[in-house]
């Protein structure tokens, strides 16, 4: 009996100590990790879809409260006006969430470009989405909020061969981006009207 108590006690103390330590370290590194992700993963993705913008979209960002969470919106200046807005959504892929950066032209309401940020897809199969421009270019010019689906599901997007699940994840993310965009459109307009690049 005493041994039992001791075992439970030791494990409990050890686990709570471990949990406390990890929580403390996580709290202290969270901001730094976010800024690193922004710099090394989201940064290049944003730069790629905002090619040709005359400002730095990563610097010119604003945050909005969406469903209780803070979300970053990146602004791209084209032809002297803040035309394009990019933000990240997620679709469920083969190895967890596929983070997708979707850029929308605010004036026309069409998709300006799509790019993949964080993912855990199989190297050589789903992970090809990083470099597969033909697949991602299909989303260009589609009206935001349109049902995007791969051909297998009755939509118009040609999936990457062998990587239907990853392709589906990107479609889902783009669809979610549509919902989100329509929800916060007035607030985005408001932000952009006060924008001074």
């Amino acid at each position, binding site marked *: 009996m005493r041994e039992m108590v001791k*075992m439970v006690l*030791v*494990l409990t103390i050890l686990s709570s100590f471990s949990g406390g330590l990890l929580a403390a370290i996580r709290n202290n590194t969270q901001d730094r990790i976010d800024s690193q992700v922004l710099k090394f993963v989201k940064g290049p993705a944003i730069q790629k879809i905002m090619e040709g913008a005359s400002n730095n979209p990563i610097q010119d960002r604003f945050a909005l409260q969406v469903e209780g969470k803070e979300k970053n919106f990146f602004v791209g200046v084209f032809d002297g006006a803040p035309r394009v807005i990019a933000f990240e959504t997620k679709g469920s892929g083969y190895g967890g969430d596929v983070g997708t950066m979707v850029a929308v032209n605010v004036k026309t309401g069409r998709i300006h470009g799509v790019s993949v940020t964080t993912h855990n897809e199989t190297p050589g199969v789903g992970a090809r989405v990083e470099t597969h421009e033909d697949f991602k270019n299909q989303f260009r010019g589609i009206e935001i909020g349109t049902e995007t689906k791969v051909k297998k599901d009755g939509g118009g997007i040609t999936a990457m061969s062998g990587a239907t699940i990853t392709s589906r994840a990107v479609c889902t993310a783009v669809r979610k981006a549509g919902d989100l965009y329509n929800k916060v459109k007035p607030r985005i307009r408001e932000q952009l009207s006060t924008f001074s690049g």
Partner: protein
Amino acid sequence: MAKTLAQEFTKGLWEEIPPFRLVLGLCPVLAVTKSVANGLGMGIATTFVLVCSNLLVSLLRNVIPSKIRIACYIIIIATFVTVVELLMQAFAYPLYLQLGIFIPLIVVNCIVLGRAEAFASKHNPIYSIADGLGIGIGFTLSLGALGAVREVLGEGTFYGMEVFGSSFEPFTFMVEAPGAFVCLGLMLCLMNLAGGR
């Protein structure tokens, strides 16, 4: 026969150098040694976990009941691995992107658990640190050496720097998975020849 502190440290560098003599922890050895930088990064992360877990296991060796000792070791090791993962994300994000899944997998690296069970649970903290440090540095050097051979032959670079000039045709087989096995086998063979076994 009791060894001196210095002997406990140096045994990890040659006599019991993990991948070559103990032939332990081969999963990360084969997977991440595509380049010198990756190999060293993985080695340093493992060394940190090894030293910290050895120290803690050794300090708690009289408190932990023997029936649940493995569970306790795993809690300790997993905690430090998560610490390393968070720190690497915060301060060395590009390296984290390269090593990816293999950082969390240090938890199941049998060197770490092996040293906790075979050494730290029976020796005092100072000796345990010496042992952890020795084995860790040995592991780091092995990974670095293997990474160097594979990177130089497979990419024609060393730590990202050009070695042979542009006329060199890289032997890409070496940076692929089968190349890791061949390279490890040849190095083992050389080590055994040199060690007179």
